[in-house]
């Protein structure tokens, strides 16, 4: 039994029989988890007992809730499908080759062609062909070279979570940033409270530090990370309100003036609150990959890895495609006489699993 995730050609790693996925390199992600756990662990071990007796038992309880939230959100971000688009099959490339969906002349090879879309807002979007994924990239889709896949609403590839941040995990990522900045602030403020209270009991401040050296370590880690985490959180809040992605902000997609006219973001709903609402609480599409579906031997999914497409010459594509098709057809003729889509139909009725 071959499952669909085993045939995905991107560089992602898959776990738990296709239930979770992550980027290729997860070293920094593990470092982030260790850093968060150690800082919180030190807080629970060295600050909480004193603060519970001195102030209130609510302090460790609230810290534990925050810590669990952070861990939950980081795992959701790292293990969800960010919105990877499935690659184009050979039939699709053949159709695109022949059809006139593009605005370019027929002589130009597919990778050189573009589709121009006139939006009702007056914007003209140019859709480019992705020569790795063999699809015309829809608006806001970008190819991540680290994951080797086209990601819907690509924001950026975050090494700290070891995954791309895109359409499907952006809200998890933002929740993670938000809860982590609160956790950082919380730990830092109670570290200071702890030191101040202890220095009241002790003759001097130095004695208080000598009592709890771990508190100083936590305070230093939190103090240095709060600027970057808080800054990033603020930056993403700004981006969400304007409904643009980090990728678009870096490339100045909607800021540059072209032909003397300033281009406005066509995806903004006009109001910061509505943008916020639609990005964070809007509908969440399921994973496009359907990773846990079983692949039958004569399914239409291309088992043969596609050759890299040449960007200048059309000849290799044309020679390659018919061969590929013939091979598939031969398979079908020898192996089965039943309708090739009948098993697909059954396939589709089995419940989909969503990451």
């Amino acid at each position: 039994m071959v499952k669909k995730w085993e045939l995905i050609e991107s560089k992602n790693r898959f776990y738990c029989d296709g239930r979770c996925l992550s980027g290729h390199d997860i070293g920094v992600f593990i470092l982030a988890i260790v850093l968060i756990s150690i800082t919180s662990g030190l807080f629970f071990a060295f600050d909480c007992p004193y603060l519970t007796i001195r102030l209130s038992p609510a302090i460790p309880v609230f810290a534990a809730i925050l810590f669990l939230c952070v861990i939950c959100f980081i795992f959701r971000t790292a293990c969800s499908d960010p919105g990877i688009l499935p690659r184009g099959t050979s039939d699709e490339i053949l159709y695109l080759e022949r059809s006139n969906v593009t605005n370019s002349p027929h002589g130009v090879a597919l990778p050189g062609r573009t589709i121009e879309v006139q939006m009702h807002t007056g914007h003209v979007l140019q859709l480019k062909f992705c020569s790795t994924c063999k699809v015309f990239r829809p608006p806001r889709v970008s190819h991540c070279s680290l994951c080797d896949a086209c990601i819907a609403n690509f924001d950026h590839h975050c090494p700290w979570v070891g995954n791309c941040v895109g359409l499907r995990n952006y809200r998890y990522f933002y929740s993670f940033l938000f809860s982590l900045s609160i956790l950082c602030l919380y730990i830092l403020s109670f570290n200071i409270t702890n030191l101040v209270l202890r220095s009241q009991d002790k003759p001097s401040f130095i004695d208080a530090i000598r009592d709890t050296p771990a508190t100083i370590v936590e305070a230093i880690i939190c103090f240095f990370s709060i600027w970057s985490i808080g800054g990033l959180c603020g930056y993403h809040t700004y981006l969400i309100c304007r409904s643009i992605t980090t990728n678009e902000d870096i490339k100045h997609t909607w800021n540059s003036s072209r032909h003397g006219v300033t281009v406005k973001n066509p995806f903004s709903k006009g109001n910061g609150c509505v943008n916020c609402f639609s990005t964070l609480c809007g509908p969440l599409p399921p994973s496009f990959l359907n990773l846990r579906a079983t692949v039958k031997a004569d399914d239409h999914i291309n088992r043969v890895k596609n050759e890299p497409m040449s960007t200048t010459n059309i000849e290799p594509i044309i020679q390659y495609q018919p061969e590929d098709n013939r091979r598939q057809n031969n398979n079908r003729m020898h192996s089965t006489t039943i309708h090739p889509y009948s098993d697909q139909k059954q396939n589709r009725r089995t419940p989909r699993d969503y990451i």
Partner: protein
Amino acid sequence: MEVTTRLTSEHSIKLFIQRDYSEGTAVKFQERFPAELEGKIDRGKFVDIIRHVNSIYAEAESLSCKAFMENCCACLTGYLLLLCMPTHYEKCVRRAAQYISEENDRTLTQNGIFMIDPMEKGLRCIEVCISSNR
């Protein structure tokens, strides 16, 4: 099933109904009648099917109170709620898949056409197979 057994790959032409991005990134497929289907199926009938699929996806993408509440509850539980409950969008996707398979059984396969759930292609296009020996 007798009709469908003839619909093998070597006799079929595939065509792909592309997305319509004129209203933004919301899922919408082009509602024009492809030239390849001329003479195979009634023009209005086919466009109606696409339009109905579009309406299901428009409902999935709409900013409704229900979707808002669902996402707020999910956020408060650390998104663990989504592991045990299908979202509004998923229900709509399933409904669209069911609608397409019903239309296949009802009208399309009789005319030698087979439509595939757009989710298979990552909502980029709807794949339509035509058997050419009819």
